[in-house]
């Protein structure tokens, strides 16, 4: 059995007294691709933010390779590098070139050698089809290109797990594909990933396991086939119904 990369136990997250995540448990094994589905506002983004320490948690534990990520201020930075996160809004640094964006953290935070980092950055950019954009600035890129840069920026830190939060939600339809293809190829390489998405076809294609969340809890989980073809709970059925259309004629 593969090693457990992410281990969440009894996670409770509240905002202003409202319970958002309610005693949630979850494991992700090395090399596994888990897709999180759930209605809007159910806490998917909040869960990802708790996993890389952007949100304080009220109780429970989040462990990356057995090491607690919350509460430990001193090594929070170190642990965060093990969790790569890509956001819906790309959040590239506007004042830095593509290469500058990608190289900032490996050089400044991980103290790696510039030459070596640059070489890897160019290599990764080539893989996502942006070899010619290394010296461009974010404003000169399309949304899909920005998002691919953001993925490279996360990858270069060599994270143990990658978190994707609706990374195609802000993109025009024709750019969605190029970003999803990058994620699919990462899945093929055996990267451990936790993906929040509203692209159901993509979820089916990429997921080793689907986790369905509602009301701050995992309501249902299983393989993509099980979940989409035979959802067990009423909530999951209702959720999936939103994405299917019946013929009206």
């Amino acid at each position: 059995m593969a090693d457990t990369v992410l281990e969440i136990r009894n996670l409770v997250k509240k905002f202003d007294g409202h319970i958002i995540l309610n005693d949630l448990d979850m494991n992700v094994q090395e090399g596994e691709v888990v897709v999180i589905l759930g209605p809007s506002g159910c806490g998917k983004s909040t869960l990802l933010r708790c996993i890389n320490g952007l949100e304080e948690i009220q109780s429970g534990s989040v462990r990356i390779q057995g090491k607690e990520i919350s509460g430990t201020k001193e090594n929070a930075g170190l642990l965060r590098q093990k969790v790569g996160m890509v956001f819906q809004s790309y959040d590239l640094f506007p004042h830095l070139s593509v290469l500058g964006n990608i190289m900032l953290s490996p050089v400044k935070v991980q103290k790696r050698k510039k030459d070596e980092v640059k070489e890897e950055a160019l290599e990764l950019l080539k893989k996502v089809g942006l070899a010619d954009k290394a010296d461009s600035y974010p404003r000169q890129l399309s949304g899909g290109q920005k998002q691919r840069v953001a993925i490279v920026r996360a990858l270069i830190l060599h994270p143990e797990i990658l978190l994707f939060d609706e990374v195609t939600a802000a993109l025009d339809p024709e750019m969605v594909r190029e970003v999803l293809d990058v994620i699919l190829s990462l899945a093929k390489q055996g990267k451990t990933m936790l993906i929040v998405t509203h692209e159901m076809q993509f979820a089916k294609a990429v997921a080793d396991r689907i986790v369905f969340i509602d009301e701050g809890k995992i309501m249902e989980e299983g393989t993509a086939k099980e979940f989409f073809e035979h959802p067990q709970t009423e909530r999951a059925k209702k959720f999936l119904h939103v994405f299917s259309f019946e013929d009206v004629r």
Partner: protein
Amino acid sequence: MNQQMIELLAGGIKETLYMTLVSTFIAYVIGIPLGVICFITDKNGICPGRIIHLVTGILINLLRSVPFLILLVAIIPLTRLIVGTTIGSTATIVPLVVAAAPYVARMVESSLKEVDAGVIEAAKSMGSSRLQIIYKVLLPEAKPSLLVGGLISMATILGYSAMAGFVGGGGLGAIAINYGYYRYQTDIMFVTVAFLVLIVQLFQEAGIWLVNRIDKRSA
């Protein structure tokens, strides 16, 4: 206009530039850290701290609400302590700095507030320390806006420096007051005013040119 007048004006310009530039510089040396501290200690900041946030906020507001002419007089003892005299352009730098530093701090704070919160989170999520976020993300991101703020501050300080002419400060302001106000030599006053306007314009043009050069954020 005779040779003597020209020398007088040249000296005034030099003094005004000296007061303005040195005061702006020192005001920024104090104002940037103050503004950064105020920004990061906000309850949604990268380093929340209620007490520090409150104290810096009150200090800034307090100093900002004292009218400059009053401040000028009120801190005369401090000026004498630091410079040894209360007359002349060097002495004027003290009240200018005291008045401008909190103003600059607010400018800096509002420039930092313009930085996209998502970008700060991205830096955080990649493991950056707080200092790294300040030096590598916040300040560079805000640089164009900080520069614009610097220009506005400089123009404000220039205006204040002219006011200081009333109470023994030097520079173009003192000339305008001594000749234009006390001796009714309006021609000299107009020339002085023209130079003041010219200096502000020059600063502004140079600044805008600089901002356009370094601003990578928009097309």
